[in-house]
């Protein structure tokens, strides 16, 4: 019997199996941000073990609340800053170079096919887009990762998600993953790995694949992987060319050894015909409560705020799509718009391409890269009774502010809804 990509990565990183089925893996990257890391740092200090297993394998960023909004968030940043300095962590990103972790770290080339990656953040599954095993963990797992460079997982079981066909006009990776979550439900993939395959995924850019993998956790999945291929290689080439002596064929062959075997074991396969998909939005407090925008449009579901950003959809291709919809139009009266490019590089590209002008002309505010609004911490918190068309990944009750409602949508649908003032099908705006 063959092996899945995840089984191959587990085999290559197995450090210990203290009990049957408990796999302790060596880690290639331990990612850290200022919300879940400070308490791990404090515990390490308290245990007199203030050290890191390998400073070159630890990447850290202040991203959730930045610049600091109050004394408490300022203290979290200070703890991170001082810890990174005293432990020789060179890849530390602070104001001026910081951005949303799951957009920033891939952009820096830190995630490679076959890697094992953890972070104290549930959307760490994003990095599965590179053919890496990347999983969100709690602070205790993070602490052990920082100190020992290992993390324990159960023997993986994989659900294969095969998406085939060309995406119809107005349908994006976000609509695909929302449809997958609708079908799987919010715990349909708990303790499972999602493997995204099929012609649709093969044709996707890395940014689109990151949107898919980002929301694997919303179906409960541990990670969501795509096979590392030519698209992956082209994205990573500036960082990896030297490793392969500039030989792309050699690099591709190396990446392909991670691919799931044709006879690999899957628990089940979910087949999706991409050509039949439509633009969608969530209505409710769970990400599997997904409806077609063509139908929702008739209900005139009010939108008080539009948010374009986050680790799901805050990348340059997302901004380009939203800008194309917004160009020459204005936000509806009574609807406010927030654009949050996910990293400084994305911000700069959007500036140079004239995208920021398009958004600002429409009435948007452009904020610095941060996670803030997505989880109701800063930069766009909702009031009770307000609704937001958001390109983020979670619509839990209170997520963007107590008493607020979040409608998860693609960047095109968010931008179109901002112009209309209510949830709309973006196809009329393309």
């Amino acid at each position: 019997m063959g092996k899945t990509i995840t089984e191959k990565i587990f085999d290559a990183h197995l450090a210990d199996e203290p009990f049957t089925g408990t796999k302790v893996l060596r880690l290639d990257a331990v990612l850290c941000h200022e919300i879940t890391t400070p308490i791990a740092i404090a515990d390490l200090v308290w245990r007199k073990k203030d050290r890191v297993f390998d400073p070159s394998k630890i990447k850290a960023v202040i991203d959730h609340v930045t610049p600091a909004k109050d004394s408490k968030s300022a203290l979290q940043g200070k703890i991170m800053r001082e810890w990174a300095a005293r432990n020789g962590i060179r890849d530390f990103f602070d104001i001026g170079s910081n951005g949303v972790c799951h957009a920033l770290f891939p952009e820096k080339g830190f995630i490679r096919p076959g890697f094992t990656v953890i972070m104290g953040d549930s959307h760490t599954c994003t990095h599965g887009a590179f053919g890496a095993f990347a999983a969100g963990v709690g602070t205790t797992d993070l602490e052990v990762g920082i100190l020992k460079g290992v993390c324990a997982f159960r023997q993986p079981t994989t659900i294969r998600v095969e998406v085939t066909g060309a995406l119809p006009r107005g349908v994006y990776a976000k609509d695909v993953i929302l449809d997958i979550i609708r079908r799987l439900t919010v715990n349909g993939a708990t303790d499972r790995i999602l493997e995204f395959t099929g012609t649709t995924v093969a044709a996707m850019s890395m940014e689109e694949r990151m949107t898919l993998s980002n929301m694997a956790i919303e179906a409960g999945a541990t990670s969501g992987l795509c096979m590392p291929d030519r698209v992956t290689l082209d994205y990573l080439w500036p960082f990896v060319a030297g490793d392969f002596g500039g030989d792309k064929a050699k690099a591709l062959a190396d990446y392909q050894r991670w691919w799931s075997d044709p006879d690999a074991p899957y628990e089940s396969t979910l087949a999706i015909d991409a050509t039949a998909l439509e633009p969608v939005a969530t209505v409710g407090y769970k990400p599997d409560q997904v409806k077609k925008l063509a139908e929702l449009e008739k209900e005139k579901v009010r939108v008080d705020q539009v948010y374009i950003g986050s680790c799901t959809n805050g990348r340059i291709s997302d901004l380009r799509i939203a800008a194309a919809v917004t160009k020459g139009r204005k936000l509806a009266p009574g609807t406010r718009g927030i654009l949050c490019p996910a990293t400084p590089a994305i911000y700069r590209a959007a500036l140079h391409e004239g995208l920021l002008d398009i958004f600002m002309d429409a009435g948007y505010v452009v904020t610095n890269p941060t996670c803030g609004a997505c989880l109701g911490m800063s930069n766009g918190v909702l009031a009770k009774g307000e609704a937001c068309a958001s390109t983020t990944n979670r619509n839990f009750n209170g997520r963007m502010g107590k008493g607020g409602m979040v409608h998860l949508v693609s960047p095109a649908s968010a931008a179109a809804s901002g112009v209309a003032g209510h949830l709309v099908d973006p196809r009329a705006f393309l």
Partner: protein
Amino acid sequence: MKTFGGRTLFLDRSDINTDEIIPAKYLTEVDKDALGPHLLEDLALPGFDPKAARKGTVGVIVTRANFGCGSSREHAPWALEVNGITVVIAESFARIFRQNMFNGGMLAIELPAATIGELFAAFAGSASAACTVDLDAKKLRMEGEGRSAEYAFTLSPFDEALVGSGGWVEFADARY
């Protein structure tokens, strides 16, 4: 090792997420005790008063499926822990939440849906429902208003080792 058991709070809903257990606005705290007063503050459950879970009132929560879904924040189990709740019994858990419970030496016990249904039917209406946990025998006993019931549960060897050693840091530090 922690102690397990006590008065029991029933939360009759599936998919209770970690934002509901501890809202993100409190994640700027770097002291676990500061999370205590905000436990379950945003839980959407008709008739539920978050004060019912406050410090010293309960030791055990019984709930439905997929408890602890969403954000990876270990602030969720910490918010339970600082209020004296070290056991959650559910049909199922989100992976990260369950691991966080055992990583901190606490118990996330899974029981079949039918058993959870029995517990709700027999004890959820009792203000005095209380649970004792026999970790050696892997049995839990629920009592309330003159009724009692006993159920066997299982723990994986790894989860049991984490509880026995006090958590994952202790386990990993001794071994790696």
